[in-house]
């Protein structure tokens, strides 16, 4: 029994050491950290892609299903900035909502252009075809509301509407793409309120 306890202690210790080592590695590989204000992020983000930034802002929402995402807001700006959980990090806790945090992370860009939308459309078409085939092989006679009919009527209408909307936004933007920026979190620290 003593051996089992010893083994457990060794395993827990090994995990703890591994975790500390990862944090140290992150520290040592840190390059320049650019301080960015929440209110200026949208304008500055295009020049910050793949760069490490530090931002202090308040958390307006934490994804309840798994805590993989949180959103930052500030008194000055309504728009929220998405912060995604970095690799090997523990999930964001929902209790963090409302707190001010200092986040260090890498700026990530999701670029939506015509190629992206065409690929998306092709995926939807393939899915519709698959659903039609499945429905035909499963249902011998035609029944209203069957899978093929649903597919024809457009279960994927929302996605198609989104694609049309993105195309419209791209046309209005005067460029050939839309960019959505987020921060891949490496570490964060809750700033304690000074007086309460």
């Amino acid at each position, binding site marked *: 029994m003593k051996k089992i306890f010893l083994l457990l202690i060794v395993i827990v210790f090994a995990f703890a050491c591994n975790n500390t080592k990862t944090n140290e590695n992150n520290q040592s590989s840190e390059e320049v950290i650019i301080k960015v204000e929440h209110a200026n992020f949208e304008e500055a983000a295009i020049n910050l892609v793949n760069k490490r930034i530090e931002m202090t802002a*308040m958390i307006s929402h934490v994804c309840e299903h798994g805590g993989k995402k949180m959103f930052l807001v500030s008194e000055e700006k*309504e728009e929220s900035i998405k912060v995604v959980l970095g*690799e*090997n990090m523990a999930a964001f806790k929902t209790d963090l909502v409302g707190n001010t945090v200092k986040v260090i992370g890498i700026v990530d860009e999701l670029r939506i252009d015509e190629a992206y939308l065409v690929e998306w459309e092709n995926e939807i078409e393939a899915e519709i075809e698959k659903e039609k085939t499945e429905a035909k092989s499963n249902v011998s006679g035609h029944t209203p509301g069957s899978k093929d009919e649903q597919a024809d009527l457009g279960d994927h209408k929302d996605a198609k509407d989104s694609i049309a909307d993105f195309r419209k936004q791209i046309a209005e933007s005067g460029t050939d793409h839309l960019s959505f920026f987020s921060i891949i979190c490496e570490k964060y620290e809750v700033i304690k309120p000074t007086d309460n």
Partner: protein
Amino acid sequence: MDGVFLILDRMQFNWRKWNRVIHRDLGYFFFGMVVIYCLSGIAINHRADWNPNYIITTWELQIDTNQDFNKETIKSIIEDYDIDSKYLNHYKPSADELKVFLKDGSLSVNMNTGYAWLELSKKRPIFKAMNYLHYNPVVYWTWYSDIFSGALIIIALSGLFIIKGKKGITRRGAWLTVFGIVLPLIFLILFYY
């Protein structure tokens, strides 16, 4: 089938003993994990009926919006209305809305009408922590829960061969095992295929 067990039993290697040992010790070791996943599983299954993480209480308030809403005035509102939670932060999600974050909740104010919605939440004991684990909070937990899942398969397989005789896997055990497999199959045939 009985013949196979007879041959195995006559072998020098006492496989039944080791089967029992594995089943027993894995059962002891993963008892806590089974409870965690079962309780959080039930909690999450019924997410539509209750909030498995928080006990939430709400109030409707009417607030005078003819004032400048800053940290100090908001704090005094919290005191005036005897709200049992500390101020954390505030911001305006839109021109006519004010959101105040409290330590255990939030206050949303319609700046046009003064109608305010106060929500105070308390962590649901035990369930909140177990649900946190159920959602794979960190990669190390994912590894550990994978090991746990593998261990459950071993516990299930070894469990089939614990008892010999008429209540074992060759008779009563076989029927119960088959029924246990057929039941999910019926659900699959009815609702999946």
